[in-house]
């Protein structure tokens, strides 16, 4: 028998499928990338041993496998740059740490400028990034063409390319591999990953969380972390408070498989699309949210058409590419387009949400600071500014338009 075939048919499961215990020291609600990352660091950095992740679906079903896999840290504001740069530095060692080939590829991220305003904002962001220790460069149109030969920089273009910012350390990773790696790592560290387990109520006694009611029975918990992205509002309502989040569909698409022609990530605010090419060869494209609230994990075809027409602007040759698949996920959008990671009005209940359209890139850093917050009961310095109370104090981190992408 071919040993490879043997391996395929006898591939070991990457994680156990345990029955929930009656009680845990900490339970993470949400088995996505950020939830598993949180559990991973709770064990690795803080030594917790009796923890579970509960997931209503299954691991590798939600946004973990619906994102466009872009990783970068070139955010304008100090708080965001610190958060995302920390995450990027963790990405740089993560494949080795998790002992899994996550195909992390620092192929560079271009953010194109198409008008004078874009150019000025881009150069401002490059300078802000450099002051924060984030690698950033400004390229003129000729340099853009040199770095990414298939971008159309002709002056006849409807939105001519005037230049771009480049973060060379940015890039992509294979999202399926990341969620597999995290599931396996958590399981190996003794975390119970409980799939098919929907939270139906949150037990709060005297302002303190004591456990969860789930579709697989009650689970007592010393601490609870809500890491449920687009479904966070439904959970916090169970605990008696609201978060300033609106859940929207975010759609993406892939083309059929082609030879490698696009060597980096290309993003554009003005024509509004972001494009990369997966290792396997599909062109991966995404853009903005569908405008309306939804939990349905699908959106309108006209939004996909707009993405593709924007893609044609930058890469006329893609007009002959064919769409293989489109899909939608539900993203949790905050009024200031920045996440909420920290304490809640309920004692021992913590929330990590609001990453909106850009959570994938933050996966390691998000889990790292969330684990710190849960373990110590205090936010890490990196997530302290990303508090739920900032909407009351007015200390917003307004990344709408500033974050190198329109949301």
């Amino acid at each position: 028998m071919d040993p490879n075939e043997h391996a395929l048919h006898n591939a070991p499961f990457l994680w156990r499928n345990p029955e929930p215990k009656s009680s845990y020291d900490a339970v993470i609600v949400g088995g996505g990338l950020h939830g598993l990352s949180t559990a991973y660091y709770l064990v690795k950095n803080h030594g917790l041993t009796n923890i579970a992740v509960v997931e209503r679906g299954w691991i590798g079903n939600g946004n973990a496998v619906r994102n466009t896999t872009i990783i970068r840290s070139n955010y304008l504001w100090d708080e965001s740059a610190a958060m995302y740069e920390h995450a990027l530095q963790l990405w740089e060692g993560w494949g080795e740490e998790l002992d899994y080939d996550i195909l992390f590829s620092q192929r560079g991220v271009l953010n194109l400028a198409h008008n004078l305003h874009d150019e000025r904002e881009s150069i401002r962001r490059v300078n802000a990034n450099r002051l924060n220790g984030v690698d950033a460069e400004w390229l003129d149109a000729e340099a853009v063409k040199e770095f990414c030969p298939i971008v159309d920089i002709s002056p006849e273009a409807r939105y001519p390319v005037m230049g771009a910012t480049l973060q060379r350390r940015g890039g992509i990773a294979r999202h399926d591999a990341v969620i597999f790696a995290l599931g396996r790592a958590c399981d190996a560290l003794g975390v119970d990953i409980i799939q098919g387990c929907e939270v139906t109520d949150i037990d709060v006694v005297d302002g303190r969380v004591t456990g969860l009611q789930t579709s697989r029975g009650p689970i007592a918990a010393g601490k609870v972390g809500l890491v449920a992205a687009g479904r966070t509002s439904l959970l916090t309502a169970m605990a008696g408070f609201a978060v300033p989040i609106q859940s929207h569909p975010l759609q993406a698409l892939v083309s059929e498989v082609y030879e490698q022609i696009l060597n980096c990530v290309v993003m554009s605010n003005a024509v509004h699309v972001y494009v990369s090419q997966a290792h396997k060869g599909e062109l991966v494209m995404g853009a903005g949210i569908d405008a309306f609230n939804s939990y349905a994990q699908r959106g309108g075809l006209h939004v996909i058409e707009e993405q593709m027409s924007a893609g044609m602007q930058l890469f006329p040759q893609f007009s002959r590419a064919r769409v293989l698949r489109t899909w939608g996920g539900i993203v949790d959008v905050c009024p200031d387009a920045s996440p909420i990671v920290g304490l809640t009005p309920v004692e021992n209940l913590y929330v990590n949400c609001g990453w909106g359209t850009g959570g994938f890139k933050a996966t390691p850093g998000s889990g790292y600071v969330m684990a710190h917050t849960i373990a110590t009961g205090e936010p890490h310095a990196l997530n302290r500014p990303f508090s739920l109370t900032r909407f009351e104090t007015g200390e917003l981190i307004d990344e709408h338009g500033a974050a190198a992408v329109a949301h």
Partner: protein
Amino acid sequence: MFQIRCPYCGPRDEPEFKYGGQAHVAYPADPEQLSDEEWTRFLFVRDNSRGRYAERWNHAAGCRRWFNVIRDTGTHEMVGSYRSGERPEDAR
């Protein structure tokens, strides 16, 4: 893409419309009396429920008027629409 029934023009495709978020959010009667917490709620917090949801739409590429729609955020089912000033029960 779904169809939305504009109460003034009839059913049209979704790209003709702009979204306006949750309906029936009244401006505070006495804003100077609000606490920071109440002001936060008015400025930033909107219902984000799964199920039937009253929301505002503007027929931007048509009559350009605002109106309200009842839509299911879990299924995208269009329950009905009604004019500003009418009640959700009037949706059809």
